[in-house]
């Protein structure tokens, strides 16, 4: 198992969030939408210009910008 940044995740790769390293409004928004430690995510795809990223979480789809994804640390299975 390796910990990587959400931005570095590939399409169709899945993992479990281990940390959300931001506070304030952005931190709150990220958590409000279910991106909390322990949540399983799957990268569903990226926008045509590689940003934002679309994630599958708890049965729904969310999108967030890469610079927001930078605050999210994910544990993924080793290649």
């Amino acid at each position, binding site marked *: 198992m390796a910990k990587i940044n959400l931005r570095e995740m590939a399409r169709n790769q899945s993992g479990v969030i281990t940390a959300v390293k931001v506070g304030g409004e952005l931190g709150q*928004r990220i958590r409000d939408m279910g991106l909390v430690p322990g949540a399983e995510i799957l990268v569903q795809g990226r926008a045509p210009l590689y940003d934002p990223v679309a994630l599958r979480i708890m*049965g*729904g789809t969310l999108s967030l910008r890469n610079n927001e994804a930078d605050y999210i640390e994910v544990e993924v299975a080793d290649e």
Partner: protein
Amino acid sequence: MSNELTIALAGNPNAGKTTLFNALTGSRQHVGNYPGVTVDTKEGRYSKNGLSCRLVDLPGIYSLSPYSEEEVVARDYLVNQRPGVIINIVDASNLERNLYLSCQFMEMGVPMVIALNMIDVAKKRGIEIDHQRLSELIGLPVCPVVARSGQGISELMVAAIAHAREHSKWQPAKISYGEDLDAAMLDLSEMIKAADFLTQDYPARWTALKYLEKDDRHLSIGDSVNVEMSARLVEKVEQVSRHLEQTVGSEPDAMIADHRYGFIKSIVKQNVVHRTIDPDRLYASDRIDKVLTNRFAGPLIMLLVLLGLYNFTFTYSALPVAWCEAFFSWLGVVADTFVPDGYFKSMLIAGIIDGIGGVLGFVPLIMFMFFGIALLEDTGYLARVAFMMDRIFRIFGLHGSSVMAYIISGGIAGGCAVPGVMATRTLRSPKERMATLLTVPFMNCGAKLPVLALLVGAFFSENQARYMFLFTLLAWLMALLAAKLLRVTVLRGASTPFVLELPPYRFPTFQGLFIHTWEKTWHYIKKAGTVILGISILLWAMMTFPALPETDRQVFEDQRQQMSDQVSPLLFAELEGTTEPSIEALALYEDLLAVDGAEAEAALRYSVAGRIGTAMERISWLPGFDWRTNIALLGGFAAKEVIISTLGTSYSLGQVDPEASESLAATLGNDPGWDAVKALSVIIFVMFYAPCFVTVACIIKEAGSWKWGVFSITFNTFFAFLLSTLVYQVGSRLF
């Protein structure tokens, strides 16, 4: 009926809240507006089986944080209006995420019933929810419903009304946030209870929680009541924060959110949800997304969809718009025939009928536009557009959703800024929304096109199409740059977090589409109508008064008299008659028209507008405008196509029809005062200066303050003036 039960509907966006509201109230609803905010709350009535109550539809929200207007409105509503019970709509196929908001309502302690919506969709996805088990675990009634078909909603209302009767007191649920925070919550609650701090309105536990979350909004409410007590609580929270930082390296607000999800997970795991299908399976919606947001096909399809919307709006509304126009010109003719000549008649026709016609003429356009947008929004496609366009628009401090507003305003030449400004409602980020709604009027709307076509036709006739295309690109460039400028100055600030839900694709309900469309359209008629009528009359008065003095009018009268004395009266008879008039008679007619034109020109110059236009020459020489252009531009504030007719009057051509302006083009082309550089300068000015006042009225309404209307007029005019001056001064030195 002051003690009638009020039920508030709350839930996540896309959980089917509006559908449920429509199903419960039918057409008995109206939009309410909170002063100072642009968030709508709808109200309606429910009565069935002898039960009757008032229903309030709160804005769709994900959380009760203090960061967005919607969330604050919902919070304040619950606290200040104290509804008897809230119905929390929860999407059954997305249970965990939706329960996050429910969890916060439980913390607040409002009497609540959960409507478990879209159980049919969930079932298809292999998700079965044991609603009785869920109800036992959270201690609240849970009613399975399908809002779309109305299944289960009668039972829901029975349960909600019964629950309201049994529970009149707010009882905050005690959710655990971990050992440290639980202890802190107890301490804080004790302090709050002992001091009777805010307990009139808020349960002590809720205040304690909000202080731990460092919720600015609640802190300022606390400060306004008791600064000293508030400071003591903040100090206590600081202690806890420091301790947590050292021991677990986390902040209280983050830990609280994590534990809420922990609480939800612990409930859901207790045999509430049964899945028969792998949760990571691709559903129909995901398969559609594979195509619609595909790197190559996605943008192409988006372009087609947006073009389609644009065509739909402007092509299909053309006929009803023409009917409206025909009706008002008929009304003008009627007034012309039956009302005696004089100022009243002139005001009635040029001020009132043209003014109201100007507003109502947009109505079909707005209806079609809202219908199209509602369709894109309700199906879930709009969120995908935002997703795909965000990277580009972010560069300019905007949001992916901004693209719609620009296109409707004339991003594809020929739109209209009025529906464009109104389309910014789909943007949830306040700063990005303001920047968008202030810059959409830069686009080349349908009313600017004839002005542009006139000048391009007169001075750049060889490459007409190419120039028009260039001006469209220029409009985009300038609008985006101006948005960027606004975002680093008056609307400065970090971009609003983009975290956006991409809801599953759904078929919209027709009831929803029609209610939505009608509501928005009626809003426009009401708000815009009053302002516009006033300004229309004002502009008419400015271009009419003061009237030419008697002595000046006599000069023109004498000229007319002189002409008719010189020719035989038979010629007049010929003009009145039905047969083809002779060449001499036509010449006389032309001469008389020329005198009328000259009189209209003199009268316009003598009026307030004319004097302003003349006075403005003191600075308008910079971009190369004379008094004639100035008046025309002033008139363009009523509607941009008025520029043509006013320019016609000031060049003594009488009334010029914007659709057939060849004579004016020829006059300008031969006028020594005009050349290509001046034409370009005027074109640039027309493209970017103050939006027409219908647009300004909409900006004021959408931005929530008249100050933004004033800002829009001054900022745009100043911006246009600088650009035109640059073009004219540099251009006339080079050529």
